[in-house]
């Protein structure tokens, strides 16, 4: 966020208690700030990693009840409660996430749903610890008594009650601003990139050495920690907590807040929190409700007209939502008693947002007002010449004279089908090894076995002196095997530069504290990684496109970006799965030059390719597979003449010429 926005936010916080003199509305603002902390944290899980949590109210409750237990049984106040509650809630978050995120699918939603119910029941039943349904009372502390300074501070209200209210408001506001700051920094760091990357392509994420499982858990625990902070603040703000503060409905409201406000933004979840906190008031006051409904109708009418005039949308698309907004206003005018319709109105709002504002209010406004600017690059050219920023580095070496990779009698069985049937091959250091064969002959299966996507049914795989068969993808990636994918697996919503930075994830050392506090070491590390990423992009010829979203690149450039991202892993062995597919002759010439440079730098390459001229001009040795078995192996010229290879794969040769 820019300095101006921050300054405006701080000024708004400072003057708010003077503008809002009613204790009731000041309390609402405090609640909005506290719920915003929850929704901002929830957005990390829901917006960024794409997992659904239905237990955030329960996590908030854990935070509040940690404060309650500390106050009731240990006489500890607000300040010690904050770090303890953050730790305890994060611990509960880990307890939930560790089993639930091991598998993909809706499990986190189900586990958190059950968790929410259990937490509420336990708080109710464990009366010795929690005081059960009776709840726990708190006293909001006075942080600073400014009465002795009455003469110097004539503009301040000196009553005890007002002092507490104002001070507590500032506390909540500061907590919210710090939350925004930390979340901004974490999301701009390697963690934020990992969260988005794992949603775009989990398999590529794992194969870049960034464990999808681990980072989903990290995101959830981070989110839970913010619930802990919010929980303590909530308890002291309400001055009373009871089990029914933390119902399942509240969890759903948090999700709605993030969706309505707008995911993947800071403003969206805050706006959403404001809506869910303020909505009950709105729905209790018919005059206010009519004004707001009228306002919405007016905005819809004006916004719709602008869209049609600018020809962004056809009138048919605009007509329905605008008509609905006007009908809603008419309904508001006709309505006599609002209380009967509270839930129905809430439901209509949800449906409306889901149908017509899928990106939330903030997403909608962004589209209407501004077009998204390209991602920032922030690379320091001074760092680019550092030796650590060289595009190619190699992490593992073969042990004296041995093969870098040796595959021994590998079998991969899927049900009754043997995709690989006792295949052996060996790759010498610094060589390019071709792997060819008809479609469906097991080449890609071999790639997946080598990178841990599949665990082989039988056989051994040794890489740089260690047995890697059956190891997990992130481990194998970090051991020094990088790959590209036949059907390109980029992180589409990340920029070209960020895709390479995900590959450089392994080069970072700084943790959450260093990132949140933006220590010099963390800044240096990020700057160096960016310099190196730019050098890698230059190496594959994509430097000019660094800020572009990866999904907007043409196919051939996407393939080059995959190679760049794989190089970022500092691999000793690079697996290229059909890098020339979809490329025309000039692009292929460029690709061949890049692969040669990679080999000359000392990497070994396994190349799956159907363009025979690419295979012939690059490979030191070629292995041919058919129906999961090796049918030929040797120098490329010899393999090309092998009658079995011609029969199974090459055909009469017309197509080879067409290439």
């Amino acid at each position: 966020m820019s300095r101006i926005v921050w300054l405006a936010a701080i000024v708004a916080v400072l003057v708010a208690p003077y503008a809002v003199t009613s204790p009731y509305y000041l309390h609402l603002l405090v609640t909005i700030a506290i719920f915003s902390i929850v929704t901002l944290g929830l957005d990390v899980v829901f917006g960024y990693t794409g997992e659904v949590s239905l237990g955030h109210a329960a996590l908030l409750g854990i935070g509040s009840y940690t404060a309650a237990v500390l106050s009731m049984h240990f006489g500890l106040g607000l300040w010690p409660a904050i770090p303890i509650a953050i730790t305890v809630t994060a611990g509960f978050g880990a307890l939930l996430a560790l089993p639930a995120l091991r598998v993909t699918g809706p499990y986190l939603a189900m586990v958190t749903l059950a968790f929410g119910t259990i937490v509420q029941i336990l708080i109710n039943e464990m009366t010795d610890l929690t005081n059960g349904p009776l709840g726990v009372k708190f006293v909001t502390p006075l942080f600073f008594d400014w009465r002795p300074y009455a003469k110097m501070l004539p503009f301040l209200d000196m009553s005890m009650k007002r002092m507490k209210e104002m001070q507590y408001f500032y506390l909540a506001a500061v907590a919210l601003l710090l939350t925004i700051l930390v979340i901004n920094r974490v999301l701009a760091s390697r963690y934020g990139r990992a969260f988005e990357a794992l949603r775009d392509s989990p398999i590529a994420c794992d194969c870049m050495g960034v464990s999808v499982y681990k980072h989903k858990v990290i995101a959830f625990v981070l989110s839970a920690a913010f619930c802990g902070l919010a929980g303590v603040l909530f308890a002291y703000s309400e001055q009373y907590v009871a089990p029914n503060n933390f119902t399942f409905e509240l969890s759903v409201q948090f999700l709605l807040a993030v969706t309505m406000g707008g995911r993947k933004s800071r403003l969206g979840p805050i706006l959403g929190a404001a809506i869910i906190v303020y909505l009950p008031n709105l729905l209790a006051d018919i005059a206010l409700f009519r004004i707001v409904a009228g306002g919405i109708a007016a905005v819809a009418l004006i916004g719709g007209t602008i869209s049609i005039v600018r020809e962004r949308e056809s009138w048919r698309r605009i007509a329905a939502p605008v008509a609905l907004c006007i009908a809603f206003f008419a309904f508001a005018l006709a309505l006599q008693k609002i209380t009967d319709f509270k839930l129905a109105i809430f439901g209509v709002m949800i449906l409306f947002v889901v149908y017509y504002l899928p990106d939330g209010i903030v997403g909608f406004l962004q589209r209407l007002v501004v077009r998204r600017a390209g991602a920032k690059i922030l690379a320091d050219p001074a760092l680019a010449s550092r030796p650590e920023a060289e595009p190619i580095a190699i992490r593992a070496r073969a042990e004296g004279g041995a093969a870098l990779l040796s595959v021994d009698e590998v079998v991969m069985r899927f049900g009754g089908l043997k995709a690989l049937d006792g295949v052996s091959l060996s790759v010498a250091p610094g060589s390019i090894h071709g792997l060819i064969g008809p479609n469906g002959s097991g080449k890609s299966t071999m790639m997946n076995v080598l990178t841990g996507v599949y665990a082989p049914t039988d056989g051994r795989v040794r890489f740089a002196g260690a047995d890697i068969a059956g190891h997990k993808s992130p481990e194998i990636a970090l051991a020094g095997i990088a790959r590209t994918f036949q059907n390109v697996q980029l992180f589409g919503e990340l920029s070209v530069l960020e895709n390479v930075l995900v590959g450089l994830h392994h080069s970072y050392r700084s943790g959450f504290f260093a990132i949140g506090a933006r220590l010099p070491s963390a800044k240096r590390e990020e700057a160096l990684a960016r310099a190196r990423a730019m050098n890698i992009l230059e190496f594959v010829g994509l430097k000019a496109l660094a800020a572009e979203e990866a999904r907007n690149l043409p196919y051939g450039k996407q393939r080059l970006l995959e190679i760049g991202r794989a190089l970022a892993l500092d691999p000793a062995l690079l697996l290229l799965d059909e890098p020339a597919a979809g490329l025309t002759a000039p692009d292929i010439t460029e690709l061949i030059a890049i692969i040669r440079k990679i080999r000359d730098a000392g990497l070994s390459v396994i190349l799956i390719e159907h363009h025979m001229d690419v295979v012939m001009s690059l490979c030191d040795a070629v292995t041919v597979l058919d129906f999961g078995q090796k049918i030929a192996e040797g120098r490329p010229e010899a393999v090309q003449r092998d009658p079995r290879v011609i029969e199974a794969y090459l055909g009469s040769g017309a197509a080879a010429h067409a290439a």
Partner: protein
Amino acid sequence: MLEVDNLVAGYGKVKVLHGVSLTVPTGQVVALIGSNGAGKTTTLRAISGMVKPESGTIRLNGRVISGLDSHKIARLGLAHSPEARRVFPSLPVIDNILLGAYPRLTGSRPKGDVAADLERGFELFPRLRERRNQLAGTLSGGEQQMLAMARALMLQPEALLLDEPSMGLAPKLVEEIFVTVARLKAMRITLLLVEQFAAAALEVADFGYVMENGRVSLSGTAKEIRDDPAVKAAYLGSAVGRG
């Protein structure tokens, strides 16, 4: 006849096409060639409505189809066999093919004889008949490409867009694909073909267009394009200099 006039399109703020015009006469094959990122795939995507054109008109047999949703364009008789094939992996082969005839079964296209067309598809691609009950996701790359083409033909299209049918296929299969394209030509299907194997594509085509940086840089009969020295040097030469 498919006519594209001054088409401008792109993704978000990135403009890819800067005024592309081309014509595919009824019953003829037109090859669209060019280097990566020239905008060939985007042109096809804009024609079939998967990318909304920002300006320009596209006509199918005289009727303006630019700006319509892609399912409506399909119902008007434009079939698109997309890059990377996009078969429905968890449906059997036969259902994949029949989904291509969906607009005919729901009455938005003339129904004709669906069973006979299915039979014709199986004749064109005998391998698909053998695998008719297998899930499409378990097919090899070549078989998926055949499936995508068979599915597109089931629309009884007024025009067919074929995007990189040979991509990722073994050399032997690439030959087969070009044999199939020649058979489609013999069946008088109006065909717009995007291909990486420019030489083979121009061999089968009647007309050719060369795209560079989102514009058509050269057009003419396939023979004229083949004989153009600049095209020869840039696109028809093999990557390692073999002709």
